[in-house]
């Protein structure tokens, strides 16, 4: 107001801090270079530039909300004693200093709130203005209009004040324009002022429909700008004053008494702000400098507002027709430019209830067996398809869906195309073709099996039950007859490890295919024992069922494992330290050397070789330790020492080379057989044998060895002589000693020997030891019996034993 009559210098507005006038002769101060400029807070403390948050400067105590003392919560105050002192915390208690400052969200000083700040009237006018500006010959021609926008006096609410000739309508500020409309003459029609002008500007960009750039208003202030505006689209947009709080353009502070220059400045300010707006692409960057005010925050706990922003105040609604409001209310959301809400609601879709389930419905799908149409099972097929509710197709007629292009062409009498390739299959590689073929066969096989199974079921149900043993046989017979069809295509060998067995298995399959009942019995090895045959029979049957049915399907999907994963087998060291009994006897005789030594291949770790500075003896092998082999886990033979010929070469070798130290040993050690007496009673078989022997000869153990040595000598000497003569003593009875071979191997040199056998024969050197030696021999023999000694005469024991 004071500005109205101002003139001269009063018109000028000084902004900022003026420079001090220079003294005469004083050199202007050098500006502080950028790197030396520091930012200090109000207490003069240095503020470090920090980042986008906290306004770019450090805040709090080392950017925390705490202080140097840490978080000090307010101490507990008992509400009983000092009820009066209880303070109710307001939002300000949780605010920082900045929030309470002039530009914070809760300024302490008096500022103009949005409600009283001058702002653009409504969106319609704004839009119209924008359109006019865009289409005007001079862009931005509406600037003049803006200049003479009345600044609303907010603080001094005097409705009668006229500013720049634009008089505020008399009466209340609200609804003033409505009243203006009332004065219109009845017979004159004007273009409605408040209709949203149609935007006829051509769309010359490639953006989507109603595309707007990033709206900082939404981004920064959430939904504050997105309050549902009841009246924005309506024709009576003048009610903006009530609803439109979100859209406020600029920060034109309309203080009363503003001069024209000031207003002009305000507008320039807006323009300049727009100039360095958020981004070049943004069309609107309004309100990024909008002040947060406390009025935007809820101060009272309450329910969400009902959505019309009226908080239950319904008075303005009386001015509107109820229908329009309803229409507007139906659509909550932004209406795109150029679109309007439909006047007629869409007919809603009719929703049909789900069908009623029958009472006995079970939600399990039953797959009907697929039966290939062949001549034999046409009846079955017919029955099946009838039960499925499908009409039976004749074999000759094809449905049109079953025909392929070439067949249809044939029917139409077309000549087949003479292209280089007629089928996609031609492009496939040989491998893929094979796979396809395999899969095809697998499916065919499945179908065949299903057929067979259904046949078998029907057969078994139709006739009386056969005898129990027959059932099992027939069942796998049935399955086999179906399953073996595929095995010829897939050359799977379940017994590939044992070629003989595999051969028998294949013969079995062939026989089975020919439908012979005794196929299994015929192909089994007649030389096998009953137990082995029974086992093999089971194996074959199982293999035929399992592998035939699953193999061809599975093999097309799986590749072979690198290592065989057979749970039936267990890894054991390939070379076992062989029998201890031989070694014990050898040790007893001090026959160290070949007899007591086992040599294995052993693979040291590569790193160990490196650490020992030794070249890796097996550079190509990844094995570590003893080489291992797999053996059947449950085979009985794992636990028996198989009579292997491995030790016989050792015996031969030792027979070639006489231990040199033997003579000295003998001379030094007269008590060679010391321990044999203790070990005599090792097991019951030895006792049994000795008993048997005592029946033949006089009892030798009860009486002293010196007494009956003669008789023993007699009985023993005979076979020894036989051995000595070089006769094969296989057929000899009780007297033949298998371990003699061992001893021969030990004692005898290749040329000639009289060491052991001649000693035994003559029995002169160690007369007093004879009895114990006999026992020792016996002992070793019996251990041989149990362990099936490696000695070559092993078989004779059995016959021996049989006697």
């Amino acid at each position, binding site marked *: 107001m004071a500005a109205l009559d101002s003139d001269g210098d009063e018109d000028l507005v000084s902004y900022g801090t003026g420079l001090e006038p220079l003294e005469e002769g004083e050199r202007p101060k050098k500006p502080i270079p950028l790197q030396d400029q520091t930012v200090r807070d109000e207490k003069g403390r240095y503020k470090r530039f920090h980042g986008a948050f906290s306004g770019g400067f450090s805040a709090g105590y080392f950017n925390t909300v705490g202080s140097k003392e840490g978080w000090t919560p307010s101490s507990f105050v008992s509400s009983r004693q000092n009820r009066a002192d209880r303070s109710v915390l307001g939002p300000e208690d949780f605010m920082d200093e900045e929030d309470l400052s002039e530009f914070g969200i809760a300024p302490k000083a008096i500022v103009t709130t949005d409600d009283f700040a001058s702002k653009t009237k409504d969106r319609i006018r704004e839009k119209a203005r924008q359109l006019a500006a865009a289409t005007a010959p001079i862009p931005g021609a509406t600037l003049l209009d803006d200049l003479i926008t009345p600044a609303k006096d907010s603080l001094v609410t005097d409705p009668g004040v006229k500013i720049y000739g634009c008089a505020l309508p008399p009466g209340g500020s609200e609804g003033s324009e409505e009243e203006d409309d009332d004065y219109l003459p009845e017979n004159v029609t004007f273009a409605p002022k408040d209709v949203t002008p149609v935007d006829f500007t051509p769309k010359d960009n490639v953006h989507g429909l109603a595309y707007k750039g990033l709206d900082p208003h939404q981004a920064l202030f959430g939904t504050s700008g997105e309050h549902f505006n009841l009246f924005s689209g309506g024709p009576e947009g003048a009610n903006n004053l009530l609803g439109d709080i979100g859209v406020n353009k600029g920060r034109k502070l309309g203080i009363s008494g503003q001069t024209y220059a000031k207003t002009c400045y305000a507008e320039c300010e807006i323009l300049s702000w727009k100039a360095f707006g958020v981004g070049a692409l943004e069309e609107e960057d309004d309100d990024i400098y909008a002040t947060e005010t406390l009025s935007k925050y809820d101060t009272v706990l309450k329910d969400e507002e009902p959505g019309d922003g009226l908080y239950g105040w319904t008075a303005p609604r009386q001015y509107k027709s109820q229908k329009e409001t309803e229409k507007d209310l139906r659509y909550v959301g932004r209406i795109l430019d150029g679109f309007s809400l439909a006047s007629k609601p869409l007919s809603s879709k009719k929703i049909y209830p789900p069908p009623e389930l029958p009472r006995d419905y079970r939600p399990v799908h039953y797959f009907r067996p697929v039966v290939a149409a062949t001549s034999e099972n046409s009846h079955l097929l017919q029955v099946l398809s009838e039960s499925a509710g499908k009409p039976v197709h004749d074999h000759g007629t094809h449905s049109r869906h079953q025909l392929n292009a070439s067949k249809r062409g044939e029917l139409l009498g077309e000549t087949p195309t003479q292209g280089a390739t007629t089928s996609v299959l031609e492009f496939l590689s040989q491998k893929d073709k094979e796979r396809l073929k395999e899969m095809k066969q697998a499916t065919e096989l499945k179908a065949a099996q299903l057929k067979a199974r259904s046949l078998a079921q029907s057969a078994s149900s139709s006739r009386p039950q056969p005898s129990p043993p027959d059932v099992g046989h027939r069942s796998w017979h049935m399955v086999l007859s179906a399953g073996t069809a595929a095995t010829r295509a897939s050359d799977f060998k379940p017994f590939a490890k044992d070629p003989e067995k595999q051969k028998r298995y294949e013969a079995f399959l062939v026989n089975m295919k020919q439908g012979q009942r005794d196929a299994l019995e015929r192909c089994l090895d007649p030389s096998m024992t009953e137990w082995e045959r029974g086992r093999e029979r089971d194996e074959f049957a199982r293999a035929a069922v399992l592998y035939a049915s699953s193999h061809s399907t599975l093999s097309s999907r799986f590749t072979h494992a690198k290592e065989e994963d057979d749970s039936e087998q267990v890894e054991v060291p390939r070379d076992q330290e062989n029998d201890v009994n031989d070694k014990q006897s050898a040790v007893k005789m001090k026959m160290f050397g070949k007899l007591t030594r086992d040599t*294995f*291949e052993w693979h*040291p*770790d590569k790193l160990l070789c490196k650490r020992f500075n030794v070249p890796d003896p097996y550079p190509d092998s990844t094995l570590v330790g003893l080489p291992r082999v797999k053996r059947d886990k449950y085979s009985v033979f794992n636990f028996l020492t198989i009579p292997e010929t491995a030790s016989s070469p050792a015996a031969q070798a030792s027979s070639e080379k006489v231990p040199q130290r033997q003579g000295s040993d003998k001379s030094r050690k007269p008590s060679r057989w010391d321990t044999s007496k203790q070990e005599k009673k090792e097991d019951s078989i030895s006792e049994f044998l000795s008993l048997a022997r005592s029946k033949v000869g006089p009892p030798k153990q009860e009486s002293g060895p010196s007494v009956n040595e003669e008789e023993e000598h007699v009985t023993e000497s005979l076979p020894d002589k036989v051995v000595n003569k070089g006769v094969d003593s296989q057929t000899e009875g009780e007297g033949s000693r298998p371990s003699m071979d061992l001893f021969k191997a030990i004692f005898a040199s290749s040329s000639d020997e009289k060491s052991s056998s001649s000693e035994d024969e003559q029995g002169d050197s160690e007369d007093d030891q004879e009895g114990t030696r006999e026992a020792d021999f016996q002992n070793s023999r019996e251990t041989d019996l149990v362990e099936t000694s490696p000695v070559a005469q092993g078989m004779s024991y059995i016959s021996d034993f049989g006697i």
Partner: protein
Amino acid sequence: MAFPEPKPRAPELPQKRLKTLDCGQGAVRAVRFNVDGNYCLTCGSDKTLKLWNPLRGTLLRTYSGHGYEVLDAAGSFDNSSLCSGGGDKAVVLWDVASGQVVRKFRGHAGKVNTVQFNEEATVILSGSIDSSIRCWDCRSRRPEPVQTLDEARDGISSVKVSDHEVLAGSVDGRVRRYDLRMGQLFSDYVGSPITCTCFSRDGQCTLVSSLDSTLRLLDKDTGELLGEYTGHKNREYKLDCCLSERDTHVVSCSEDGKVFFWDLVEGALALALPVGPGVVQSLAYHPTEPCLLTAMGGSVQCWREEAYEAEGGTG
């Protein structure tokens, strides 16, 4: 003019008690010379390992860190580190100077009977009652053994290492020799549980002592018996045996409180050195001189030949 070669001195046996160390660490489970024979290690049943100068009788350092009694120890070729194994199933690598534990190798399932360095002290081989020999790498940081030799059927009682062989005696009565160069394992059956094995110094023979109170000298390559030495008593304890410094005699502990010396070639008993009333649990022979250490009870005795005079008056 050429002087004739001096006639080689008749081998003298250590039979003069030079020193008795009262170790003060409970029973001495093992006594071991270091690589050059100037120091010795005693493994105590009080979880400590002690380093001594046996000739002077001075304690140099105590290494504590085992969780149970220490059963065997060995020194590296450069005297920079020690290894030990004990009843706590752990194999420990020690730094000699600082006395700190450098590594602790865990993995054995039973107490560790014997430990050995390899020639360059890059690998520790430990034999345990869990019937495995584990080769621990001292260079890398990995906690698992480089290789586990688990061919034995019973506990390992003795492990010795040459430049390319590992000799192991097991309670299952076999002596196994792993030849890294040939990539072969030689298993010699002895029958009785093995208590101690060692190489001869020429590397051609192995000496095997077993619980049948017999020592056997076996040819390393063929496994043949070269000699048998009896007379001592070894029925229940894991007693040590060794060869004298020039392979002239076979030396063994005995449960009757003596140390037996046999002539290696003749096999005749050369000397039965009475040590004390108890069992001679462990012994160690000097690598170059006729010097013997024996352990009995909680003390260690140092023996020299009769003609030995203590140098420098140190006693």
